[in-house]
């Protein structure tokens, strides 16, 4: 405060000095002027100091404000950063994981309940909400796109399946005509390839691969099923596998995954190499190995493949498949995730890739499967059809009975029992006792349809070896007709005249086809073909073999061709 008086004091001193130095008339005027000037300066000085103070205060205030603003800015930045880096992705992930938008927003609010008054919080909330809405829409659109995908794939699958059934019928019908048959097989193969593609689309769309199987299917059939869906199945060498079956629900995904792995293996290995397919039992289930002799998968390539598998396991992005999609591994990964298969790709000792797919224990059953490979146990296959009320289980019990009465040493293959020639068909007839020939009606005991069950299954099993075989063995080869299932049935006693008519002309069989003159290699012509035992499946051909061995012929060519047609199984038509 004194500072502002200093100029005034200096002026006062100067005025006093001037008045003292020059006393006279002007002295009083000088003094007055000096006093006024000093006062004015003092006032000015005082004002200047006051303003300086005020300015200082204002500056301080401004600095404080600025600091505060900076702080707020930093806080907001931090908040935005957190939102962008942390909360938004988390919320979007939760949305993609299937949570509802309201849930996600509510949990966000709860997290930030303490800074609810913050105006920036509200803005952030609004941003989050807008983004999540967009994500929600996107998800809905993607889902509907996927549904459309799956829907189309399902339609293709239905057509392919229909086609496959029709083709199988045609193959049966034209089995006698090699040219047509071979062409049908080609079409059938192409059809299966289309089916695989449709299955892949369905799987990528998040649905099941395709058809469902009700009954367990033998592993061997499953492996061959996988082979039948790839282009180059001729190169796949299927090694013998253990006799287990795959439970119904896992059959289709397993076939499909195997088909994709096999397709990869055959596609990325030289065409002259073969691909080895085998299955072994391991602690946790069945390990199916697919080994090719192609280019080895480098560490980088393997990492990429495994990453693809892993990505597929965590949900797949259809956009990520790219222009030329390599669906195979993505599909395998998807299936592996859904069904708990473990898939690994390793370098193979052959130089190529070894893919190992482990099927968990829960999908494996050792019970004999009702549905079997072609040619093994096809007769048994018809049983569940005839008795829809007895699916699976009674069959399984029936197998031991069959092998018992068959009087043959039990073979490793469970199906062997039903097909041993001596007692095989007797046994097959014995266990359902009308089940194997349910609809033929020619069988005296055949009680068609569901009233039969109590008789055939339970009692037949234990007592089969003792009593029943005798009558059955006598009766089994009688029928020479077709059941509804296309199974041949013989009738000898029941239709003796017909059999006689059929057998006699056959002896004269003039071999209508001109190409026939013994072109078949004859390593050693069967010397005495007549069956040694009375109840052989081939017995009724005794007349034929007699004729072959010299008994004079008795009828014309017409009968012969008719008989052969009959034997060829025209019943398929």
């Amino acid at each position, binding site marked *: 405060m004194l500072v502002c008086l200093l100029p005034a004091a200096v002026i006062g001193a100067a005025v006093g000095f001037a008045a003292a130095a020059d006393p006279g008339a002007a002295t009083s005027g000088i003094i007055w002027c000096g006093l006024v000037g000093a006062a004015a300066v003092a006032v000015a000085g005082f004002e200047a100091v006051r303003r300086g103070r005020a300015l200082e205060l204002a500056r301080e205030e401004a600095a404080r404000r600025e600091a505060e603003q900076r702080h707020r800015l930093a806080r907001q930045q931090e908040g935005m950063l957190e939102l962008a880096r942390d909360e938004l992705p988390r919320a979007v992930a939760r949305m993609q994981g299937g949570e509802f938008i309201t849930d996600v927003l509510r949990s966000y609010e709860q997290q930030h309940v303490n800074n609810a008054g913050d105006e920036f919080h509200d803005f952030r909330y609004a941003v989050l909400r807008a983004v999540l809405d967009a994500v929600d829409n996107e998800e809905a659109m993607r889902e509907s796109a996927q549904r459309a995908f799956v829907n189309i794939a399902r339609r293709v699958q239905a057509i392919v399946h229909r086609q496959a059934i029709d083709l199988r019928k045609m193959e049966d019908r034209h089995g006698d005509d090699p040219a047509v*048959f071979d062409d049908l097989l080609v079409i059938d193969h192409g059809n299966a390839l289309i089916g695989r593609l449709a299955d892949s689309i369905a799987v990528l769309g998040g649905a099941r691969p395709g058809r469902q199987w009700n009954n367990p299917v033998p592993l061997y059939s499953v492996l*061959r099923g996988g082979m039948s869906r790839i282009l180059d199945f001729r190169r796949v060498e299927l090694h013998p596998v253990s006799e287990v079956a795959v439970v119904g629900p896992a059959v289709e995904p397993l076939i499909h995954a195997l088909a994709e792995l096999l397709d990869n293996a055959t596609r990325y290995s030289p065409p002259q190499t073969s691909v080895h397919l085998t299955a072994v039992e391991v602690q946790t289930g069945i390990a199916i190995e697919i080994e090719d002799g192609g280019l080895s998968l480098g560490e980088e390539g393997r990492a990429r493949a495994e990453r693809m598998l892993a990505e597929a396991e965590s949900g797949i992005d259809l956009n990520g498949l790219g222009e030329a999609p390599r669906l195979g591994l993505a599909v395998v990964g998807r299936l592996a995730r859904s069904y708990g298969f473990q898939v690994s790709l390793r370098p193979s000792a052959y130089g190529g890739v070894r893919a190992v797919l482990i099927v968990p224990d829960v999908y494996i059953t050792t019970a004999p499967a009702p549905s079997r490979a072609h040619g093994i146990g096809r007769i048994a296959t018809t049983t569940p059809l005839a008795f829809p009320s007895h699916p699976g289980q009674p069959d399984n019990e029936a197998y031991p009975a069959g092998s018992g009465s068959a009087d043959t040493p039990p073979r490793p293959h469970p199906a062997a029992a039903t097909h041993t020639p001596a007692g095989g068909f007797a046994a097959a007839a014995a266990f359902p006792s009308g089940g194997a020939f349910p609809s033929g009606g020619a069988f005296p005991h055949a009680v068609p349809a569901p009233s039969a069950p109590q008789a055939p299954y339970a009692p037949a099993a234990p007592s089969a070896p003792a009593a029943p075989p005798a009558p059955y063995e006598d009766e089994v080869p009688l029928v020479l007709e077709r059941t509804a299932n296309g199974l041949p049935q013989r009738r000898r006693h029941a239709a003796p005249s017909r059999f006689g008519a059929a057998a006699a002309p056959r002896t004269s069989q003039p071999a209508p086809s001109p190409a026939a003159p013994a072109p*078949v290699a004859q390593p050693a012509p069967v010397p005495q073909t007549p069956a040694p035992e009375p109840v052989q499946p081939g017995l009724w051909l005794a007349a034929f073999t007699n004729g*072959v061995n010299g008994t004079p012929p008795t009828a014309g060519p017409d009968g012969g061709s008719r008989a052969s047609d009959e034997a*060829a199984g025209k019943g398929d038509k």
Partner: protein
Amino acid sequence: MSNQDWADANPERLYVISGGRDRKSATAGFDLVTLVVARARPEPTMQPEHAAILRICSSPLSVAEISAYLRLPNSLVTVLLADLLAERRIEVRAPVPPAALPDLSLLEAVIHGLQRL
């Protein structure tokens, strides 16, 4: 109908069973009535269809019968039989060649002669 189809069908198609070979490869000469008899016992390492053929052919069966029992088309069975034949696991007997049979005119002559008696 469709349910039955689904329950009945097999995952494997016929071309896989035949191994992709067609009939032209080696099977000319098998006839529906060609007799087949097994020379060997089925082995566990064999393809199930081969084993099944050996099993049911321990007494002679015609190709047509085998095809009916296995419920496989003839053409396919002949492919399988050709495999087995190549491995000498079966023996086959061709149907009687026409040349081995008496001529039709001879038969007629005999009949006429008999009638004239």
